[in-house]
């Protein structure tokens, strides 16, 4: 009997115009999103390679270490291959972090800042389509699952037989879910094929595992709205009411809660603005710079007699002084900046965590944060990248300072040619799958809990449903 109910449900759905409409729209949107993702990724990869080469060329072309210390190096964030399905914040946040002895590294040159028109429309990635469009389809498939049958009179007719209600709702749920997945699976498989056959896109074992987990999250997210649809359908006596209620809940879940959570977190845990932090850093830098000149002059005055006695020894002593003094000053700047940054990041993280946790009441937020973490395109990934750049900065400044001191010839006034062979390189280790998975467990758990709650609600409601 269960098989008959499932079969009927699938047949009823796939012969309906909504199925054809859903299938067509899913195919167009999913393939378009993956095509867009692939095109963007290839462009970003090209840009990244070009940026690395340009940076190297730029460094090599510097006449001396002084100018090298001035311009510094530019560390670029490599594009993530899974950004093809979950763009995350990749386009909104900068992809390059300049590292020099003075300023504290920060991410600049985002896609949106270089071309603001992209920000107007946002990105059309697969996650966006699942979050907005497919969740609406899940509602479209379920809003009249129970109440619609009541209106048609078929529920009375079915239950006039010895059909247990639990079997009927189970059959309807399974059949309905299969019907919803059908128009989704075919374009998804086609999309995966595009990913596989596109040159420049290579998915490693970990990427495949991540991709499968992202897809699992998509299905769980759709299941939340599917079971919610069943629940509301089993609690209402008119399909128009059911649709309106579901639309309202959808807007609250997808649009309102994520935005309100961020605003609420900002109110509950306020943090200073980036400008305030930058102003504090700049003030300290100014203070150090004004003291630096005086320090050098004092040293020269103090050691002037030595310059007459033994100029060669004096030059060596001066080089050592400059190197130590420069290192001391940059260490002070770094320490101050690091302390300010540490406090700021701590406050920011607390605010972010609060916003994330508050917004997790919404399945849309759980999907957003979870899939971005799995695709390595979320806030975490950028924080990790920036942290790695900040950890690299003292290593770089130490190297460049040592070169600065050694490169000045006080007798001839010449400076040494730069050599980059021993320049320390920035290393960025992307987050491991196990760590990403651990971070997404709350999101998976929340989605699973919502599915269970809504389905049990639908089940219990249907057992007591007034079929008249």
């Amino acid at each position, binding site marked *: *009997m269960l098989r*008959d*109910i499932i079969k*009927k449900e699938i*047949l*009823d759905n796939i*012969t*309906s115009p909504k199925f054809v409409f859903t299938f067509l729209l899913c195919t167009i949107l999913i393939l378009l999103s993956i095509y867009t993702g692939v095109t963007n990724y290839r462009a970003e990869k090209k840009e990244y390679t070009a940026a690395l080469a340009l940076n190297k060329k730029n460094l090599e072309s510097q006449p001396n270490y002084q100018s090298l210390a001035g311009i510094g190096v530019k560390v670029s964030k490599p594009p993530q291959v899974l950004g093809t399905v979950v763009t995350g914040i990749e386009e909104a946040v900068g992809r390059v972090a300049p590292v020099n002895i003075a300023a504290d590294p920060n991410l600049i040159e985002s896609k949106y800042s270089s071309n603001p028109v992209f920000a107007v429309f946002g990105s059309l990635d697969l996650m966006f389509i699942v979050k907005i469009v497919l969740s609406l389809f899940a509602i479209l498939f379920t809003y009249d699952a129970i109440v619609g049958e009541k209106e*048609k*009179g*078929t529920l*009375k*007719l*079915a*239950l*006039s*037989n*010895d*059909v*247990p209600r639990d079997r009927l709702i189970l059959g309807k749920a399974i059949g309905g879910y299969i019907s919803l997945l059908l128009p989704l699976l075919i374009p998804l498989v086609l999309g995966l094929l595009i990913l596989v056959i596109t040159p420049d896109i290579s998915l490693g074992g970990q990427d495949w595992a991540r991709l499968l987990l992202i897809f699992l999250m998509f299905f769980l997210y759709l299941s939340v709205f599917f079971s919610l649809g069943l629940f509301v359908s089993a609690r209402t006596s008119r399909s128009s009411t059911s649709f309106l209620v579901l639309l309202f809940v959808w807007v609250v879940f997808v649009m309102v809660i994520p935005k309100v959570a961020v605003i609420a977190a900002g109110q509950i845990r306020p943090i200073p603005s980036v400008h305030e932090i930058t102003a504090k850093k700049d003030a300290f830098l100014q203070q150090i710079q004004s003291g630096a000149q005086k320090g050098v002059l004092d040293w020269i005055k103090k050691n002037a007699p030595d310059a007459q006695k033994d100029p060669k020894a004096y030059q060596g002593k001066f080089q050592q002084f400059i190197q130590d003094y420069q290192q001391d000053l940059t260490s002070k700047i770094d320490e101050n900046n690091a302390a300010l940054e540490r406090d700021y990041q701590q406050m920011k993280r607390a605010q972010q965590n609060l916003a994330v946790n508050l917004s997790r009441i919404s399945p849309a937020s759980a999907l957003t944060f979870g899939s971005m973490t799995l695709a390595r395109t979320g806030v975490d990934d950028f924080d990790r990248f920036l942290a790695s750049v900040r950890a690299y900065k003292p290593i770089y400044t130490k190297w460049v300072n040592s070169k600065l001191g050694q490169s000045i010839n006080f007798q001839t006034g010449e400076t040494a040619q730069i050599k980059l062979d021993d320049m320390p390189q920035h290393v960025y280790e992307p987050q491991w799958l196990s760590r990403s998975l651990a971070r997404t467990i709350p999101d998976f758990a929340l989605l699973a809990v919502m599915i269970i709650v809504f389905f049990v609600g639908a089940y219990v409601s249907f057992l007591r449903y*007034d*079929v*008249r």
Partner: protein
Amino acid sequence: MLETINLTKRYEDGELALDGLTFKVEPGEIFCMFGANGAGKTTTINLFLNFIPPTSGTALIEGIDVAKEPLKAKRHVSFVSENVTLYGNFSAIQNLDYFSKLAGKRNLTKKDYAAVLERVGLQKEAFDRRVKNFSKGMRQKLGIAIAVVKDAANVLLDEPTSGLDPQSGREFLEILVQMRDTGKSVFMSTHDIFRAKLIADRIGFMRKGRLVMLKTAKELANEDLTDLYIQYMEEQPGQAVPPAAASA
């Protein structure tokens, strides 16, 4: 056999929909129940199908208490409702196939379905057409075909002739007579006095949840049913038919 004993239903809002209803529909009998809207006819059917629980009293199908063993009782009853639109995207055969399987008839072929549809008077060219393009009469015939296929010993019909054209109405009555002739107990709630008079073995009138009149076809042979209907539907201190008489 269909039977109610002191069946009473009071809804949550306090409305008394059925008030100690007692009657019996014997095998091979067509029992037509009249009554104004809200008299309790549909409530009686809903209680037979366990769609609502009784406040007190018992509804029995083949001697099985519906409230206690609903699934077992429902095996012995077919139901034809007033406004069933069925699955619009399915053909007549597909609808029939689904409901037959729910009724436990698993071994029927397309030929069997076609025979039943032909029997209820549906045109052959409509068998494979989508039901959403059917007229009300055609859908009603399909509803009857679903009841025929189940082949239960008892049939409940909730105002089944409303909206049927004269030809369809006549064909429908023929099917009910065939059902009676094969020993089925048929309970029909209706407003259709003329059609009911043609086939009913007994006729009951309900008012405010009570059975206020019960007569056999013979007793009604020389009576004007319209006058009787109006007379019994008018507000008057109705006296319920004694249980013994109702069960006779």
